[in-house]
C-alpha cells in the first residue's frame, strides 16, 4: 500500500495542484491583509475567469497561456471597479456590510453564469492536454508543471511589486496603518481598489493555468475557494509565504487523503483541517496576532 511508486507521484501531483491553490489563496490573503475582510466573491470570480478562459479558447481560438495576457489585466480592471465603485461605496466602511456585499456579488456572479450557461460542465481540449513529463517512474502532466512554475513566478512578481514599487509601498502602508497612510496623502480608496484588482488578477491567472487540465461550470470556483480559505487560515490571514506553504501542504494532504480515503471523503478531510485550524489556531501557523 505504501509503496514509493504510488506515494511519490501522489506527493508530486499534490505539490503541483497545491501551486494553483496557492495562486487563488494569494489573491484572497492579499485582499484580507489590506482590507481586513474575507472576499466571499473570490470563488465566483474564479468561476467567471474560468468561463472567460474557456470562451477565449472556443470563440477566439486563444490558447489559455496566451489568453492570460489579456485576462489578467481585464480581471484587474474588474476587481478594481468592483471595489472602487460597488463594494467601497455600498458598505459605508463597515466590516459586516463589506462581507455581505461581497457575498451578494458572489451570488449575482454565480447565478448569472448559471442563468447564461446552465449547469453544464465544459472542458477545452488543447493539444498538450495529455502530454506528460517522465521523472523516473513518475509521470507529471505538462499543464500542471507549467502551472507550478507560473504560480511561483506570479508569487515572485507580487513580492517584487509589494517590496520595490511605490504602489506596493502604499499598499503596505494602508495595510499597517490606514489613518496614518491617509494623512500621508495616500488615496486609501484607490489603494483598496488596486489591492482588490491584484487579488482578482491572481484569480484570472489561476483560471488560465487550470483550464487546460480542468473543467468549468458555474459553481466550480466554490470548491477551490473553500480550499483557498483553508490555506489562508492555515498559513495565517494576510501572510504571503503562509499562503504558499499552506497551499503546498493542502495540495499534498488532499492528494494523499484522496489516495487513501477516496475522492468525496478527501474533500471532507480538507474541511476538517480547516475547522480544526480555525478553532485551535485562528491566526494560522504563520500569522501574526490580529
Amino acid at each position, binding site marked *: 500500500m505504501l509503496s514509493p511508486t504510488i506515494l511519490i507521484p501522489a506527493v508530486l501531483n499534490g505539490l503541483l495542484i497545491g501551486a494553483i491553490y496557492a495562486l487563488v489563496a494569494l489573491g484572497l490573503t492579499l485582499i484580507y491583509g489590506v482590507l*481586513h475582510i474575507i472576499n*466571499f466573491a473570490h470563488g465566483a470570480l474564479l468561476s467567471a475567469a474560468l468561463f472567460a478562459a474557456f470562451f477565449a479558447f472556443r470563440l477566439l481560438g486563444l490558447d489559455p497561456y496566451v489568453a492570460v495576457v489579456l485576462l489578467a489585466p481585464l480581471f484587474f480592471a474588474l476587481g478594481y471597479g468592483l471595489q472602487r465603485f460597488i463594494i467601497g461605496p*455600498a458598505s459605508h466602511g463597515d466590516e459586516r456590510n463589506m462581507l455581505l456585499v461581497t457575498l451578494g456579488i458572489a451570488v449575482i456572479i454565480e447565478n448569472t453564469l448559471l442563468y447564461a450557461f446552465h449547469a453544464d460542465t465544459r472542458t477545452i481540449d488543447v493539444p498538450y492536454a495529455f502530454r506528460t513529463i517522465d521523472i523516473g517512474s513518475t509521470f507529471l502532466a505538462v499543464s500542471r508543471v507549467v502551472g507550478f512554475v507560473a504560480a511561483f513566478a506570479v508569487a515572485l512578481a507580487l513580492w517584487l511589486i509589494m517590496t520595490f514599487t511605490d504602489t506596493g509601498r502604499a499598499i503596505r502602508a494602508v495595510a499597517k496603518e490606514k489613518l496614518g497612510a491617509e494623512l500621508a496623502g495616500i488615496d486609501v480608496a484607490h489603494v483598496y481598489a488596486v489591492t482588490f484588482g491584484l487579488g482578482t488578477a491572481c484569480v484570472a491567472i489561476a483560471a488560465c493555468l487550470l483550464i487546460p487540465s480542468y473543467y468549468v461550470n458555474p459553481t466550480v470556483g466554490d470548491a477551490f475557494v473553500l480550499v483557498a480559505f483553508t490555506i489562508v487560515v492555515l498559513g495565517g490571514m494576510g501572510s504571503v509565504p503562509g499562503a504558499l506553504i499552506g497551499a503546498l501542504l493542502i495540495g499534498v494532504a488532499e492528494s494523499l487523503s484522496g489516495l487513501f480515503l477516496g475522492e468525496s471523503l478527501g474533500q471532507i478531510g480538507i474541511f476538517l483541517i480547516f475547522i480544526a485550524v480555525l478553532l485551535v489556531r485562528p491566526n494560522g501557523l504563520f500569522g501574526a496576532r490580529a
Partner: protein
Amino acid sequence: MKALIPTAAVLAVLAAVPLVVHSNVTLNFLVVALMIALAGQGWNILGGYGGQYSFGHAAFFGTGAYVTAILQVRYGINAWIGFAAGIAAGAALGAALGALTFRSGLRGSYFALVTLAFAEVLRIIASVAPITGAGVGTLISLNLGIRTLQFQSRAAFYWIILALVGVSLVTAQLIERSRFGIWLIAVRENEDAAKALGVNVNGVKLAAMVISAAIAAAAGCFYAQYFLFVDSGIAYGTWISIQALLTPIIGGVGTVFGPLLGALVVKALGEAAKLLAGDAPGLDLIIYGAVLVLVIWFTPRGLIGGFTQMRKVLMRRSGPAAPSTGKARHG
C-alpha cells in the same frame, strides 16, 4: 404586555387571511414566505441583535429538516415528536458550534467563514451518508392526518407556520426588552467594551446562538412536513443561508418585524422575476444578490430603518426638535 399589542394585531390580521383568500397559489406563496421569515428571525436574533453574521444558517435549517424526516421514515417516530426533536437537534448543534467558535474568539469574517464551512461539511456528509438517503434524499410518505402532521388544506399549514412565526416574534420582542437583549446589543456595538463592563460576552453570544439555531431549525422541520422531501442540496444549500440573512437585512436588521417584512418583499420579488422572465434557474438568486447589495448601499438599516428615519425627518420639520437618538445602529 402593552408592547405585545402590535404583534398580536399583526398576527390576528395574518391569521384571518385564509378565511378570505382561498387560492392555493396565494396560500402557498404566503406559507413559503412565512417559513423564510421564521428562518430569517432565527438569523436576526444572532446577527441582528448580537452582530454575529452567520453565512451558514442552512446548518440549523437542514438539521431540523433531516431529523424530522429521518425519525419518521427510518424509526417510525410520531411526526410531532420528530418536529420537536428536529428543533432540539438544531439547538444542540447551535450550542456545540457556538461553544467551539466563541471560545476560540472567532468574530467578524472568521465567524462568517466558520459557519459557512460547517454548513458545507454537513452538506457533503448528507450527500454521501446512508442515513440521509445520500444523493437520493429522504421522502416522507404521504399519510394525511393530525397525528402525522400532514394536511390536505394549505390553510392548516398556513396556521401552523404562522403560529411558529408568532412565537419567534414574541421571542424577539421579549429579548429586546430584557436585560439579556441589552447585553446582546452591547456585544454587537462593542464587544471589548461590553466585556470590560462585566458582560459575560461568550455566554450571551452562546445563548443567542442556541435560540437562533432552534428557530432556524423549526423552519427546517416545517419544510420537511410541508414538502415531504429533503435532500442535501435543499437542507444544507446556500439558498437558505442566503435567504435567512437577506430577509432581516432587507426588512430591518435587529428589529422585531424586519424578517417578516423582508420575507414578504423577497418572496414577492422572486415571484415577480418568475412572471417576467420565466422560471429559469438562478434568476431569483441574481435578484436576491442585487437587492442585498442595493439595500446595504442605500438603506443600511433596512425598510423599517428607512421608515423610522423618514418619520423622524418629517416630525422634526413639523414639530419641536426631537431629542438626539445617539449613534446609528449600523452607521
